[in-house]
């Protein structure tokens, strides 16, 4: 059964196409991440699903119902805002109960749901505090509790963790994930952080300039990026994408390079690169030691590469090395940046 269906959704402001012909499905009880750089239209898309933004064309279906022009309050969605949108003059209890009071839910039901939600997110001791006296993580929990008591089948999250520090972010990410599975929420989660996308998503919708770049499981996006944009967006450090025609030593590329294809590009993930006696000759421009691994920044001609090596290395900047990789680890993209081959080659653009 389908939780949310997005059909050819678009949003125009004059000539600007913030969201352009986007379609995807979110299966019920699953978590879809809208991923993309800032300005790619992911927040606008989410706000259109919520009903906070008018739709220029296309449809939104929630639980089999066309809600494209339905009032936001009647769509059966709850939302967590980037700024949490807590009411500063109300205490935690009143903030959590705000929606239930608007909907005139009975006092007994309200109290029961408040207790449940507060217990789930660990706010029992803080119910009388005002938002100003809470830490960032606690405010985030209030926003989550508000979503829990709303008891709506669909939950939308707009970069909910971007105001938290790194440690708290990982913690809250896990909590959101546990909550989503426990309450079997159909969730759409907007982020520009690929770590969040990879760890949370059942499905990732990668957006670029208002259009869908690729849709799939995190592993699909990582293993078979359909474009050079996907290839470079996911992965830390990102995939190396080399212009083949600028490399003289074709033999060093260790792959079946189709002949007569100017402008084609070869992609290889930094972790698949190893240092060898022969192969592509590169010069080290920097060595970033990260503890468990070392990232080498390399240069071949005018092109930059990165290689990730376990542990430590004795290599120093300025040194010349030879690198190589397995023929299986190669991704090929044509002059338009569309995937044309490589491991688990599939027809281009699964969207």
């Amino acid at each position, binding site marked *: 059964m389908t939780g949310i269906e997005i059909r050819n959704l678009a949003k125009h402001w004059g000539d600007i196409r913030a969201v352009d012909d986007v379609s995807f499905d979110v299966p019920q009880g699953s978590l879809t991440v809208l991923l993309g750089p800032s300005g790619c239209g992911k927040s606008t898309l989410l706000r259109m699903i919520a009903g906070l933004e008018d739709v220029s064309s296309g449809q939104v279906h929630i639980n089999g119902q066309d809600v494209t022009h339905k009032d*936001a*309050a009647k769509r059966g969605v*709850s*939302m967590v*805002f980037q700024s949490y*949108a807590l009411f500063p003059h109300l205490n935690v209890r009143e903030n959590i109960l705000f929606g239930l009071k608007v*909907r005139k839910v009975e006092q007994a039901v309200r109290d029961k749901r408040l207790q449940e939600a507060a217990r789930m997110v660990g706010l029992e001791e803080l119910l009388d505090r005002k938002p100003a006296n809470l830490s960032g993580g606690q405010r985030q929990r209030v926003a989550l509790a508000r979503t829990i008591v709303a008891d709506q089948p669909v939950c939308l999250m707009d970069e909910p963790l971007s105001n938290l520090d790194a440690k708290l972010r990982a913690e809250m990410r896990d909590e959101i994930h546990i909550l989503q599975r426990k309450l079997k929420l159909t969730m759409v989660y907007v982020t520009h952080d690929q770590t969040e996308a990879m760890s949370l998503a059942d499905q990732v919708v990668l957006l670029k300039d208002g259009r869908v770049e690729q849709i799939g499981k995190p592993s699909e996006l990582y293993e078979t990026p359909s474009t050079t944009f996907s290839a470079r967006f996911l992965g830390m450090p990102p995939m190396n994408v080399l212009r083949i025609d600028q490399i003289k030593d074709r033999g060093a590329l260790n792959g079946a390079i189709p002949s007569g294809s100017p402008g084609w590009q070869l992609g290889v993930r930094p972790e698949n690169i190893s240092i060898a006696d022969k192969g592509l000759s590169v010069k080290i421009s920097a060595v970033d030691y990260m503890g468990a691994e070392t990232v080498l920044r390399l240069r071949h001609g005018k092109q930059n590469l990165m290689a990730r090596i376990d542990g430590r290395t004795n290599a120093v900047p300025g040194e010349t090395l030879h690198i190589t990789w397995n023929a299986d680890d190669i991704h090929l993209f044509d002059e338009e940046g569309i995937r044309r081959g490589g491991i688990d080659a599939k027809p281009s653009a699964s969207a």
Partner: protein
Amino acid sequence: MHPSRNLMRHVHGWLLLTPAAILLVAFTHYPTIKTIIDSLFSKGTVIRPSRFVGLANYESMYADPIFWKVLYNNLWFALGTIPTSIILAISMALLVNRAMPGRSFVRMAYFTPTILPMIAVANIWLFFYSPDIGLIDQISSWFGISGHNWLGDPKTVLPAIIIMTVWKEAGFFMIFYLAALQHVPPELREAARLEGASRWYFFRRVLFPLLMPTTLFVLINAVLNSFKLVDHLFVLTKGGPDNASNLLLYYIFESAFSYFDTNYAATLTVVLLALLAIMALVQFFLLDRRIHYR
């Protein structure tokens, strides 16, 4: 710490305070105390110099029907101007705090009465209210309603001045509300909208409580203004007819500079100061506790 270093610190401190202290003492503390002392002395003439009379001035004030009249007028004036201008100010601020064509023009139009000099404002309204030739009477004559001496009739003179004051103050207060509204994050409205809160519910439960600091500030200003009004009365009515539009401060002015009874004027001033102090304290202590400050 070394004693002379400590002394120098005190000297520095006092030197920094002195300019402000001089101004405060010269224009606030000294006049207040002098007023209180003056109110305890009789009116001095060439033959009979001023002498200490204790509370005699207060006794004659208590027996003065005009004093009670102006106090009563002032009460009605405050009740007539303050709530109306605050409600209008909030409404206008909500109206111009959204995207609409000609927004800055409307904002400016609301604020214009505040920019105009008070005497000019009063002259404009004098023309509006003039019997027969005034704007109001000319318009009403089209509908066959005969002229009325708005400022000459004791029944209509105070309402006429109240309307003019509301017109003048609402735009000024709107600016404060507009500034406060622009600090309310738009997500709050969206979060409420997703829960199904109506505009009125959102205003009552969220927006108005968040505007309370502004309302307190505006309220104090409005109360002060309602007791400070004097320049409009000069131009429009001189407090008449039969003190029907006379207010406390104008009566003080009359006592001091028309009847040259400065000691009685001082007595009235003490009452005015006491009233203002009591109201400011009430506002701070009763309202302040219920207000959420960000």
